[in-house]
């Protein structure tokens, strides 16, 4: 039922290299709605307004619902 396939996420980087693939992820600020790029270990804070509540963006994968 789910829209995604499993192998998509597992691009097989082995668990040893922790910091190497710390990719930046986009979050949305809870106050100003601006984009916040966050790498791992960075303080959770909006660069624009200093707000400390960030939300993860909705996936761009397809999501399939069961209509009931």
């Amino acid at each position, binding site marked *: 039922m789910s829209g995604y396939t499993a192998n998509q996420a*597992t691009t097989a980087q082995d668990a040893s290299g922790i910091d190497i693939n710390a*990719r930046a992820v986009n979050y949305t600020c809870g106050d100003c709605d601006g984009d916040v790029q966050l790498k791992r270990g960075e303080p959770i804070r909006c660069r624009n307004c200093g707000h400390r509540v960030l939300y993860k963006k909705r996936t761009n*994968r397809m999501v399939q619902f069961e209509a009931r």
Partner: protein
Amino acid sequence: MVGKKEPPKPKPKAAPRGAKAKAATAATTKSGPSGYDAEAVAQKDGKRALAEDVVGAIPTAADDGAHTSAADKARRHKAPLNSSANEFAAMLEPFYYGKHLTDPINTAEDKWNLLPAFLKTKGLVKQHVDSYNHFVDVELKKMLKANRYVRSDTDPKFLLEYTDIRVLQPNRAEEDDLPEGHRSSVTPNECRLRDMTYAAPILVDIIYTRGGQKIQKRGVKIGRMPIMLKSNKCVLSGRNDREMAVMDECPLDPGGYFITRGQEKVILVQEQLNKNRIIVESAKGLMQASVTSSTHERRTKTYVIQKKGLIYLRHNTLSEEVPIVFVLKALGVHSDKEIMLLVAGDDSAYQENFQVNFDACAREGIHTQERALEYIGHRIKLMKKPGGMRMRNYHLEAIENLSNVILPHVPVAGTNFRPKAIYVALMARKVIMAHLDSKLVDDRDYVGNKRLELSGQMLALLFEDHFKRFNHDFKLSIDKVLKKQNRAQEFDALAHFGVHKNYITMGLERAIATGNWSLKRFKMERAGVTHVLSRLSFIAALGMMTRISSQFEKTRKVSGPRALQPSQFGMLCTSDTPEGEACGLVKNLALMTHVTTEDDEGPVHKMIFLLGAEDICSLTGEEIHREGVYAVCLNGTPVAATNTPKRFLNSFRRLRRMGRISEFTSIHINHDFHEVQIATDEGRICRPMIVVENGRSKVTARYLKALRKGTMEFEDFLTRGLVEYLDTNEENDTNIALTETEIGLYTTHLEIEPFTILGAVAGLIPYPHHNQSPRNTYQCAMGKQAIGAIAYNQFMRLDTLLYLMVYPQQPMVKTRTIELTKYDKLPAGQNATVAVMSYSGYDIEDALVLNKASCDRGFGRCQVLKKHVTALKSYANGTQDIINAAAVESGPEFGSIGPDGIAHVGARITQNDHFLMKQIPEDTINNRVGIKHKTQSVKHKLEDCSFVDKVCVTENEAGVNLIKILFRQTRRPELGDKFSSRHGQKGVCGLISPQEDMPFNDQGICPDIIMNPHGFPSRMTVGKMMELLSGKAGVLRGTLEYGTAFGGSKVVDMAQVLVEKGFSYTGKDYLTSGITGEALQFYVFFGPIYYQKLKHMVQDKMHSRARGPRAILTRQPTEGRARSGGLRLGEMERDCLIAYGASQLLLERLMLSSDAHEVDICEGCGQMGSSGQCRICDNDKGVRKLTVPYAAKLLIQELGAMNVKVTIGLEDEFERGYE
């Protein structure tokens, strides 16, 4: 005033309140030019013309203007601000509902408009907010004054003095060091999301000595005070709806709670027996008068008891009971005659009864004050003092004890013991009076003898305790420094000041977060003072704010405290109480009740003497108790006497109505004890009432018009003496008319609106006055479980568990309370078309048949939001929990993890899917480099799938990163889901029937729900039938009907509407069977009823297991669905099997299917061996295998561990040689 000039204007025919409102709405809603509508408009016009004649006779606004004060003008200036372009402002206006500015005014009907005006200025939870404001603004400063000096034991020159204390606006903890002018942008919702405490800094101004000079320091922080939402310190106070929306806050939220560590906490209202009042009761056959004195310094209880005709004073500090005569002598009443007169007056019966007490004087030879003091001094229990061996000064000890320890609330100024002597004599007098007339014994359950302790008082207790401790700690630390003679640098006490700052902050926060109030000073240890605010539904949250918990133990079997007291009328809700053990002990406030805050005694004290009462200390006993003389008691303590009590009372009331005394001061006459009681203390329950003078209500159409226009507010009604607050005691001393027509010669007050005897939760019920009372109580419990809208900001919240209805509707049949509580804006239910008939046999025992097509269209559909929080902890060795996306493995259960190691928002998570790749360090103790992390990813446990609704990453005040993931499930009704109407009629869904099979009427309307008619006869919920009738009429003519308690749309009118629309006046319809296509042989009661979906859903409860996990210790199956546990065969079930004799079944259930265990028992010693060997006998000769429950084996071993030997005796099942 002008009001008196008005002619009485009898209304020819009092039209039903609902009817007019309806007509008005009917005119505005364009429901088509049907015959009825035209008629309604005509009817309404006629009514208006009639009423306008009445209005015309009233003095015009110009006349009115002359009497308005400057304050009124200022208010008028303010008024347009409220009604500005803000689209929501209309809702806040008291005349929003169903009335227009031009509509005629009828005092008999429209006086209820005072209620929305009252709620507008005060809000629904005014008790909490007022109490908190009083604490922060007044009580805090008083407390500082009482503890203003800190001195050092070692350096007599050192002095620190507090000059002022204040609480600033709330801010974040990290902003605490910014200058005072800084305005923080913190909002309550940020505190919820970030698990912070919503608090503000507490600042003090101090003067202290440094070196030789005095240093003044302003704005020194001593801690942080949790801020109550919507209190005057809160950022939400005075904001309009738009500003609230900007702050992500719901404008309909009542406030009145705290946010500590991200949790919403309510300090429940506590019910207690009143303080500083004499309570006469007969305990174990003894008559006793007791007083619980409560001052800032001390809390103690003093008794005056009568034993075998003799009266004694009993107190904790006295080793034995002291004869009352000695006490009075010690208090400076010299002659026996004066004692006699002070206690008994000139009443011969009382004198006779008291006479025997003087025998003790002769027996002990105590005739002077000196001797009496010595006698008492000898009986004072020794306090633990190290140097207690030296000679005690009994004399001084007795004086000290009498002035400060016994009855400390009665002031002793200098050596004037007269007030205390009078007080003790009064207690003795009351004992004698109650002894001779048992009617005079006080009722502890009487609401007038109760006080409510609110959040402000609870916090005041807590804060004072922590503040004293703070000062103490501060003193200790400066003492340590000052002790050293040669100091290198000049000593600055301020450096020591900041060190203990955290103490107050943490103390307050911890108490509110855990609910444990422990005060060392008063030896008070109370748990469960605060509760998490229930956000199951809007009404649940509201109901929690009005809840009163009592201090009674729940186990006691007495019915008194649980029973409904007549004095609860209008003060406490008559319906809203839980069922079961807390029944009647947990109560709820009614809609209009207010709980008083403390007022200053001083001005009232002065006023008493200004009104001509004489100081009681200057009177002799004879004068005090003379016929016709009434003692004037201020907060229970006699201060004056008057021989014209009625006149005194009337002039006092007049002064109060003029606003010269606080409106919350109460006065009443107690004719039994010849007392005029005046109360200014806190925690009294009171409610507003319209003043009636000379047989006429003081609230006239003119004032109501001004109220409607917005030129007058509720406060103006109070200041003008049109409305006043009455507490329970004063209420008992008045004649209150329920309606304007009932006003008679002796009427003093007029009820504002009768439906206010119910609270906010019971107010949801339509036509509650037609229901059997337990049904209303059931609905009060169920209304709080209904799924609906929580708040306008419900999607911005991250609650642990949230139930939301997808398509909530406001009820067809509303009540005034619904409008006032804004339940129609945040409803929890849907208007279902109900057919009351039998169908299919799946509707027995209250089960409901649901229409499948209705469910498809969204009936009863709800969302369940569950939160998962992970805090990334830091450890002592510098390591930290991390989220590592690289730790994902291949496989579908890792499919939804995103590049940051957290599941995608919107991803579908099924059982055992991973949604958070958390890793924890392998070593959290040793400090070394290269510590590896081990994966501890979090999996979805539930069987049913959820969607990731929201992922929030944030940081709390301590700097710990939090990851909050919200999961969403959308559920449609299924077999076994629980529904209920608003009349305590609950039922589960028994069948979801296809629409084709369901009956339909001649318009093709098909029911959403089929309810079995057997639900009605025994439950007698006539209100439900009336709701159906009114709802049906409302649907047909396009109006919302009212089912307000003691009012609402009339059945006759509704039947009339039905007939006009071509329906039967009975509400019964002709239906056709959907299965056979034939006409049903009977007419069916058919129409809309508001149905609530309750939070109990099968999906959360459904559980079965064949085999499963076992508990480690006992090896028995686990318990509960969450641990996929077994189904318990309990004691009672066991009893059944025993009685039946099913021994093999018993054996199977209790052992074989549970924790059967094979043990080796030695025949010789009766002990358990292992692997076929007996350790004690050291052989395997008599070792036998035996199957026993593992729990039994465990018990034997545990007993062995406690030095109890258990021997198992083995016997042959069949006699030897039987073969």
